[in-house]
């Protein structure tokens, strides 16, 4: 890897799952649930502590929460955190799994990263994942009382067994009006 004058990598280093896990484990022991090649899954209970420690640690230096979003995998949710460092020029991918579909809840990282304020609100608005400890969690894009959470996979139930994710090309199957299913 080419090194420049300030000792910063010329291309952002994407930390692999084990690397990120090593950072997290050294910062807050017992915070890692499991790792994959690209991502490090943190335990929800230790999430805030781990991110806070990584933000303040010198070698990880993950100061900038770039991206926060939710993903619905039908049976569980994942909340994705892309955290990066300016001085070290590296980016790490942390994830938190939420298996409770009825009352999904994740601790909020707003105390650590103020930038999570908007993104957690958005994730709450579109997925219904509550972020415990968020100072002002409200539906930022839709209005209060909107039925359901649009980005959940079971939001639309389409006739003919057409599942979201396009089993077929859009428009080839005749469609009727999508019914909105309220997810409590």
């Amino acid at each position, binding site marked *: 890897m080419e090194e420049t004058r300030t000792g910063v990598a010329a291309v952002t280093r994407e930390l692999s799952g084990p690397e990120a896990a090593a950072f997290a484990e050294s910062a807050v022991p017992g915070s890692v649930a499991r790792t994959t090649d690209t991502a490090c899954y943190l335990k929800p209970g230790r999430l805030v502590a781990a991110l806070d420690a990584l933000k303040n640690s010198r070698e990880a230096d993950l100061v900038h929460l770039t991206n926060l979003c939710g993903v619905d995998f039908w049976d569980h949710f994942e909340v994705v955190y892309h955290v990066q460092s300016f001085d070290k020029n590296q980016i790490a991918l942390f994830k938190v799994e939420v298996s409770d579909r009825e009352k999904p809840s994740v601790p909020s990282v707003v105390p650590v990263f103020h930038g999570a304020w*908007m993104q957690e609100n958005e994730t709450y608005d579109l997925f219904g994942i509550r972020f415990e400890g968020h100072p002002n969690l409200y539906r930022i894009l839709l209005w209060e009382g909107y039925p359901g959470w649009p980005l959940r996979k079971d939001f639309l139930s389409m006739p003919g067994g057409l599942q*979201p994710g396009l089993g077929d090309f859009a428009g080839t199957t005749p469609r009727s009006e999508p019914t909105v299913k309220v997810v409590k």
Partner: protein
Amino acid sequence: MTGAIKSEPFVINIGPQHPSTHGVFRIRATVDGEKVIDAEMVMGYLHRSMEKLAEERTYTQNIPFTDRTDYLSSMSNNLGYCLAVEKLAGIEVPARGNAIRVIMAELQRLASHCMAIGAFANDTGAWQTPVMWAFREREKILDIFEVTSGARLTCNYMRIGGVAFDLRTPFEPMVRQVLADLPPFIDEMENLLSGNEIFISRTRGIGVLSPEMATNASLSGPMLRGSGIAWDLRKADPYCGYEQYDFAIPIGYRGDSYDRFIVRLEEMRQSVKIVRQALDGLPTGPFRTEVPLALRPPSGEAYARIESPRGELGYYLVSDGGPSPFRFHIRPPSFINLSALKEMTVGGTVADAIVVLGSVDLVVGEIDR
């Protein structure tokens, strides 16, 4: 004197229909006299649920959606999305395609910054003159887009694996003309605004963001650089061969609205430089790697990000191996740049809040998506 005169705070709505909110964005400001003591952002008037819609369409069909998020920089949005898909599917882009992408993205940055500085000057009260001057230059760039892609605003020009068409005949002279016209225009704007005492007193020290605050609030782009943080993804994480070009990252001093303005002006100069280099060294060869129309990337995830005119534009894609993305998430820069809006506006007057809002350079299509 302890018994200073107390007045009752009241709430005013800045927006959704207000001349300075650049679209249907609304601030519920609680003011005490003219001093803002609380500011609450209300958005979603333009929400189209693009992330859900994208899950129903193929990867190629999603490109026009990205035009319509940040409608002032559609080329950059196309580019970010295509990079994410290419990263997901492992597609290489030929050299000529990359160079065309760089030229287009930088021209788009010029056009978008023209709009940003013009609208910002308008917010400070310079009655229409900077806007008109900026639009004069922006029109020329949009003409280039029209020649190349057939559209001016929502270009839909980038494709997965390259660009849609090769460059058309009058492209190069038109770009050369723009490159000749822009530096005098930038100097003109600098003379008109940067050295203007009224402009300085309106923007200097207004909406100050400390570097710690800017980092912590996940800001990006000129907002981050205005605070003195040298972070530009074109340098830090080069894509499309940005590492070949010689340019610099402009950074501000104090992180106030004025710094964000001069950073944008200087970025325009650097963009002119990049376009000139890219145009001089435009390689020949194919402009696109052929990819199947119904692309089915392997299951997995990819997060690709570019430096859009407003900051870090990221696309997070999750694929389940099907023809459409399982999860399509946009990291919209102007949405997240609003994180620090309350901190910047509270304590100033209503007029300052407008200036701060102008310096954020928000595009409501991108905020609401």
